[in-house]
């Protein structure tokens, strides 16, 4: 047993965050066939806005109830990211809807660089530490440590993902999203305003991303203008692993990737006789990406893509 169960818990926490971000990638891909590389930066903006709001409230209203403070910060962050993402789609991607696929992809990378630099100008180059407004209990569970914050991350992510899956699979709006993802032409014929559905997809993805950004910042007690890059790439990997375009796949891929990374990092030292340490954690994600792309490019649950072509 030793550290195994501990790494499983860490992996689930990490994986929950990957899954939330991966859903943003996969939803947009499902509807537009676009890999929205700016999504990682939206997640970063979510963390930064939440942090800035908490810092502001802490400075001006030090007596405020910390729960209220976090709620205000989270709401501000989620709404900011939704608005940001709405305008990214509206101004950068929509004019390119009929352009060759490479054009919006390059635009996405451009937006990503733009957002990173804007964040650096606004919030600075240094790492921002998250103020300690809560103290979390650490519990022992089957010989492993888990903090209340980690429990909260897993539970909140699970609730949000369940809600999303329920909306997509059982609501009228979700039906319209699936119809649009299958054929914009036919959905339009049936009276669906395609542009609204696409905007909605970006906005929901951004909301989940903002929550993920806040959770990551809270978990590591730190945020940085470049944090979205690696997180975005990992979540994208998770989406590909699960089968991009497939919501259940994004959840599964995220959790799996978190587990692989965490368990890999936990044992890499032992396996290589101490030659490689746990700071090689990032290697696992990209190893997984390469293996999936070579042996199963459609991902675990991604039969749908071959059908799409």
């Amino acid at each position, binding site marked *: 047993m030793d550290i195994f169960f501990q790494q499983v818990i860490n992996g689930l926490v990490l994986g929950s965050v990957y899954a939330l971000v991966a859903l943003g990638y996969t939803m947009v891909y499902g509807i537009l066939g676009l890999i929205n590389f700016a999504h990682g930066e939206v997640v970063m903006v979510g963390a930064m806005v939440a942090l800035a709001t908490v810092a502001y409230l802490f400075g001006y209203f030090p007596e405020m109830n910390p729960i209220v403070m976090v709620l205000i910060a989270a709401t501000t962050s989620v709404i900011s990211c939704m608005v940001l993402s709405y305008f990214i789609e509206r101004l950068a991607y929509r004019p390119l809807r009929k352009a060759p696929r490479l054009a919006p992809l390059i635009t996405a990378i451009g937006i990503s660089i733009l957002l990173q630099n804007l964040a650096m100008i606004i919030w600075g180059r240094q790492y921002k530490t998250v103020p300690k407004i809560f103290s979390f209990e650490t519990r022992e569970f089957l010989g492993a440590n888990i903090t209340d914050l980690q429990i909260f991350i897993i539970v909140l992510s699970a609730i949000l993902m369940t809600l999303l899956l329920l909306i997509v699979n059982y609501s*009228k709006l979700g039906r*319209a999203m699936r*119809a649009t993802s299958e054929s914009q032409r036919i959905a*339009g014929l*049936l*009276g*669906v305003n395609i542009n609204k559905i696409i905007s909605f997809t970006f906005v929901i993805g951004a909301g989940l991303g903002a929550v993920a950004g806040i959770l990551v910042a809270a978990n590591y007690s730190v945020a940085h203008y470049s944090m979205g890059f690696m997180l975005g790439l990992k979540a994208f990997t998770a989406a590909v692993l699960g089968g991009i375009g497939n919501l259940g796949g994004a959840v599964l891929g995220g959790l799996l990737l978190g587990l692989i990374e965490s368990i890999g990092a936990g044992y890499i030292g032992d396996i290589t006789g101490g030659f490689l340490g746990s700071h090689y954690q990032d290697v696992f994600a990209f190893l997984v990406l390469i293996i999936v792309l070579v042996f199963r490019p459609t991902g675990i649950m991604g039969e749908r893509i071959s059908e799409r072509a």
Partner: protein
Amino acid sequence: MSYLSVESLGVSYGAIKAARGVSLSIKEGETVALIGSNGAGKSSTLNAIAGLIGHTGKVGFDGIDMSSFPVHKRAAKGLALVPEGRGILGRLTVDENLRMGAYLRVDRKSIAVDLLRIYELFPRLRERRGQTGGTLSGGEQQMLAIGRALMASPKLLLLDEPSMGLAPLMVEKIFEVIREISSSGVTIFLVEQNARLALESSNRAYVMESGELTMEGDSQELLRSSKVRESYLGELNS
């Protein structure tokens, strides 16, 4: 008073003009057919009216100029197109496809009533309501496409080649349903390569040749016209 009025409609794909100077009108409650050979521009005309493809000229419906409306707004005004190839959403179930047809309607009760009515009209669809659209046979898909269009409770039903690719018995069944819909008061504009079938099930008809309308008239009269008999009904002049 015409319900649908199309004035000098033109459709082009690059340099190729698929339809030009198309002017036609349909009165409320009528069933009008558009016949012509393969590639005459019939589908282009129908798709342009539905707003699926860009066009020049004017499309007026129920007193409103819809020329600048995108496809979903035309649907909101009461147009429903059953496209060529049926346009079934293959990953949605039969039930979901039908419910998507009623996307613009808000009255849950009357939607439920109409859903039952469609299932009565096509018992096969009821049997397969939980299956995804992609698993249906061609005939079942055509039933689903028509059922889905009816779920919109359209003012004008546009049908593109409903007989295409179907076995004779299924064609019979589909046209039986079309006549039933027509007699229930829905205005229908029908594009069909099978000219005899189209003329037999319509009040009036237009004939299209290489992008232009060349004849129009009462369907019964066109059935008797020697030109139509020779070109579209496969009968030699005797």
